[in-house]
């Protein structure tokens, strides 16, 4: 266990950023926090979480896959992959750290997504325990401990100091480079952890009953009438999807500038009417089916394929940002009640 005074945070960041890019949450002009590349003068946000999740670091919204150059009637392939470079993300909350496990199971199983894998290998994740969870937080429902986030390094912040605990070889290696850190006693943060856990106890959805969901529940849930009412006012926008730390669907598109064609992937949302549209048409013709897909995927299909692990981490972003305030908690509660 190491530590550094809060007033010295800047030197810590500078030290980390000495040989790599460092992303930290900073406040934007409207007071919301976003992961941005640290530079001299960056100020660490005190918000509980960022608007966009930390998944952007490995799975950006838009990513070039390859290019084609057309000369006369000749076509030539161009490599567009970004060169591998190591980077660190600081301030990842427990929920987002868990989301990486969920994404890994998708992108790192065969066939491995090499674009994702390359970034994943080169990252050092520095997590941060949640001092002040929001009422929309419900990570504990998924067995996540906001007081003890995982990652290569785990940090806690008290009034005076940032505590630093490396968990992995990558974390140890980074720690070894950081002479600004001083030794600290593990006991120093016990009080902080206890306080976080005490708050977590009070979270309104911290003990959300998930028994109606999980492996093998497809048949029970798929045709339930509640889906219609739940999806009724869904606007079909992609807000929930794009701020979700575990959503991983993408579309592949091409851009032709007349000389070269770029093939890129970009996030897609199952809430969109053209999601997985095929020549035969749209497999989920109304918003009800699209809406169901999103929640069934997170709460049933994914667990089905992944030993019962839910593809939701309780970060609460969709609870805050859905334009019509429809969200996974309402779905879990409504469907759960209907099951009883």
């Amino acid at each position, binding site marked *: 266990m190491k530590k550094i005074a809060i007033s010295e945070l800047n030197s810590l960041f500078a030290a980390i950023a000495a040989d790599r890019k460092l992303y930290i949450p900073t406040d*934007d002009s409207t007071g919301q926090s976003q992961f941005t590349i640290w530079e001299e003068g960056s100020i660490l946000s005190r918000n509980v979480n960022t608007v966009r999740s930390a998944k952007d670091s490995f799975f950006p919204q838009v990513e070039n896959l390859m290019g084609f150059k057309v000369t006369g009637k000749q076509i030539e392939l161009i490599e567009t992959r970004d060169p591998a470079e190591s980077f660190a993300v600081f301030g990842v909350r427990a929920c987002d750290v868990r989301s990486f496990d969920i994404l890994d199971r998708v992108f790192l199983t065969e066939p491995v997504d090499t674009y994702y894998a390359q970034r994943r290998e080169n990252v050092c994740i520095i997590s941060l325990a949640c001092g002040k*969870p929001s009422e929309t937080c419900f990570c504990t429902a998924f067995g996540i401990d906001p007081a003890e986030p995982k990652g290569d390094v785990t940090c806690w912040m008290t009034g005076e100091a940032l505590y630093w605990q490396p968990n992995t070889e990558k974390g140890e290696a980074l720690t070894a480079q950081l002479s600004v850190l001083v030794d600290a006693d593990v006991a120093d943060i016990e009080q902080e952890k206890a306080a976080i856990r005490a708050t977590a106890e009070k979270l309104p959805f911290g003990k959300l009953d998930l028994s109606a969901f999980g492996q093998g529940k497809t048949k029970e849930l798929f045709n339930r009438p509640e889906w219609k009412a739940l999806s009724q*006012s869904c606007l079909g926008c*992609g807000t929930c*999807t*794009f701020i979700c730390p575990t959503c991983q669907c993408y579309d592949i598109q091409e851009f032709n500038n007349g000389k070269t064609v770029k093939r890129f992937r970009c996030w897609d949302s199952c809430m969109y009417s053209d999601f997985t549209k095929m020549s035969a048409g749209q497999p989920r013709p109304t918003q009800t089916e699209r809406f169901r897909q999103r929640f069934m995927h997170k709460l049933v299909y994914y667990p089905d394929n992944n030993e019962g692990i839910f593809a939701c981490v309780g970060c609460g972003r969709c609870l805050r*940002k859905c334009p019509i305030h429809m969200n996974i908690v309402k779905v879990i509660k409504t469907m759960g009640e209907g099951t009883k």
Partner: protein
Amino acid sequence: MQRVKEKAIELLRSGEVSRVLGWKTGEFFYDLTPAVFESVEEVEKGFVFSLFSGANLSKYLIAESKKEGKIAVFLKPCDSFSFVQLQKEHRIKRENIYAVGIQCDGMCDGESLRSAGCEGMTGVEDGESLTVHTLYGDQVIEKKEALLGKCQTCKSKRIVDFDELIGQQGEDVPSDRFAEVAKLEAMTPEERFAFWRTELSRCIRCNACRNVCPACSCEKCVFDNPVSGVQNKAVADSFEENMFHIIRAFHVTARCTDCGECSRVCPQNIPLHLLNRKFIKDINELYGDYQAGADFDSRPPLMDFRMDDPEPSVIYTRGGAAK
């Protein structure tokens, strides 16, 4: 506020309507969801009209009014402008709608309370000012500070079209809603460019602004249509951020009622209403005052002209500091 719920019950019970479009209680005090209620029981259980009924329900009528039977809808003054504009564009079937106008003193939502400094909110007491209960203790905030952006620059308390009114009919209210636009206009082009880059670069193209907008009710948006030639799904380049928002604003020009929903729902807090208001301000200044949705007969300025309209070069000579 209870009268609204009672009215919903009364309309269903009397058989005047078969469905009611309103707001449904959420898990918190602030997360109301627009919903269609089909029975008195459903209304009693879930209907609520409160300080958090900010969502404009009029767009749902495009689909709902085409269904069997009559539907009641509750419209705040600003929503009623959208309601009329949709009628002008033949998007809704008025004969299937029973419109109840409700007066409004401004709305809040979770995000507006959060930006006023509340975190971990568990409850609220509405009064002169708002007392917000949080996981970390109570917080008292001025109502004015917690109001939605769109309510802070409310343009009218007039309910343009309704079958029945709850509360008083209001009037247009003086508003300085163009002040922010004017402030931007007064900047240098470089400052304006920097401002909009900062704002628009946060766009994640979630389409919430478009999908919530009552004027953006196209059967298929050009940006979703692969044959339009401009389809795109994500902002692959900063150009596409500009393109999407310019064209979206242009497509709703003179049709946008300035209901403010776009800015309310933007997860990235982009002040999208400033784009729409720029067009409204320009139209007012160049072609005479026009408020979309304020009446049934006026011709939208982009579908109209005067022979002595100013030339496009007028923009060279007005506003904005030179480079």
